[in-house]
């Protein structure tokens, strides 16, 4: 247990937070890369999931992408990308792109399932009212799919914070660097201190995005009775 006391001591020492190699910089890098990755992955996956779900196509890809993603180690892709010539290589662009690829499956699967789970009668009714395809998508399917889209966002966000740590092994910064350079220097308080900070960041992400998800569920259950509870667990296991 002494090791944890030392690690907390290391974390509470203001010295370790300052400078270009300090925890402050690493934490900002970690949050910055994670936020950027989540943005890129969301902009790519959610419209695609909505579109595929709206058309009812691409089910095999949308559902099974996660299985492929699980089989590929993050470390492998990050190192391969770091070795490739520009614009890839050991740079932020390359890392954000690699992490986005891993964040696509939970976002795509949950968005797709969310749209497909919208009651077909509701969609038919919307069409009967004279709504165009675009209107059905934006005014009916998207609002009703929102809770699952936010589930995807939470799963992707937590995963990104975790995989962003691996960047530190490859070269770049972020909090993984704190852990790996602690290993290189044989500085155990730094290794464990870095690990504690990463863990707290991941748990905080899970908590905040979880609140956002519950907010979306509550808003949606106001407009549509019994949506989330039945549909959620299945879709979650498909993506987790």
């Amino acid at each position, binding site marked *: *247990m*002494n*090791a*944890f006391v030392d690690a907390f001591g290391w974390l509470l020492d203001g010295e370790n937070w300052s400078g270009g190699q300090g925890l402050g910089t690493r934490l900002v890098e970690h949050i910055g890369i994670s936020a950027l990755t989540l943005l890129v992955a969301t902009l790519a996956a959610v419209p695609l999931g909505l579109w595929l779900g709206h058309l009812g196509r691409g089910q095999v890809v949308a559902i099974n992408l996660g*299985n492929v993603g*699980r*089989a*590929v*180690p*993050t*470390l*492998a*892709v990050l*190192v*391969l990308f*770091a*070795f490739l010539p520009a614009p890839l290589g050991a740079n932020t662009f390359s890392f954000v792109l690699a992490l986005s690829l891993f964040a696509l499956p939970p976002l795509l699967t949950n968005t797709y399932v969310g749209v497909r789970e919208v009651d077909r009668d509701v969609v038919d009714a919307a069409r009967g009212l004279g709504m165009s395809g675009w209107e059905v998508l934006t005014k009916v399917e998207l609002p009703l799919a929102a809770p699952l889209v936010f589930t995807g966002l939470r799963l992707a966000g*937590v995963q990104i*914070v*975790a*995989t962003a*740590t*691996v960047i*530190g*092994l*490859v070269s770049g910064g972020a909090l*993984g660097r704190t*852990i*790996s350079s602690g*290993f290189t220097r044989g500085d*155990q308080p730094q*290794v*464990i201190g*870095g*690990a*504690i900070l*990463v*863990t707290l960041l*991941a*748990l905080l*992400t*899970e908590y905040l995005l979880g609140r956002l998800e519950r907010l979306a569920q509550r808003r949606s259950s106001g407009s549509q009775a019994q949506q989330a509870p039945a549909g959620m*667990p299945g879709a979650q*296991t498909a993506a*987790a």
Partner: protein
Amino acid sequence: MGSVGAVRTLAQLDSGSVHAASVADNCLLRNEWVCPLYVQQRQSQILEAVGEHVQITVLSIVIGAAIAFPLAVVARRNRHLRGFILNSSTVIYTIPSLALFPLLLPFTGLSITTVIIGLVLYSLTILLRNVMAGLESVPAEVLDAANGMGLGRRRLLWRVELPLALPTIFAGLRIATVSTVALTTIGAVVGYGGLGNLIFQGLNSFFRAQVLVACVLCVVLAVLADLLLLAVQRGVTPWQRGARA
């Protein structure tokens, strides 16, 4: 004829080495991505890494399953325990692997045990959820019928609930196994990552062929493990075959 002989002599004079002539067509020296010579020369090292990878994965899944099954069966009858398990498994699953291994260092040090305990925790959370979901998915009418036939609790579990839960349990086993194969690579941070060690070394020495071979082998291992489990699942749930096709 004469010129070939002259070149050979020149090469021998030039470096005094018999390898001089082969330098130009050596993919190791040119650091190429695809290099059969690497696989040839480092065969034993690669096989050793694969062996360690398989060992870590199998132990993590077997131990995880051995803990998950009894725990799921007990948790089903205890609401508090069930809530506790679901909450703590979410917390554990949220901890990044690169942070979990260091957090275990004070207990188990730089050892293969650290990696296995970390991976057991992950596989455990996946398996627990799926075993519980599988057992809960058994229709109430089926349980009523089994009760009516006079099956005791034990026989109910083994003869009715478990077989009906098998597809969900196997889904969990496959997810846990495939993720464990991928996560094992991160064990390289404490020196026991199977193929992850090769990736890590290759990274530090900028060795392209080694990185590519290790990456490909990782994916191949994951796919093979998945197919193996699928075959086992088909074998133990023969009644599902018709429904599946």
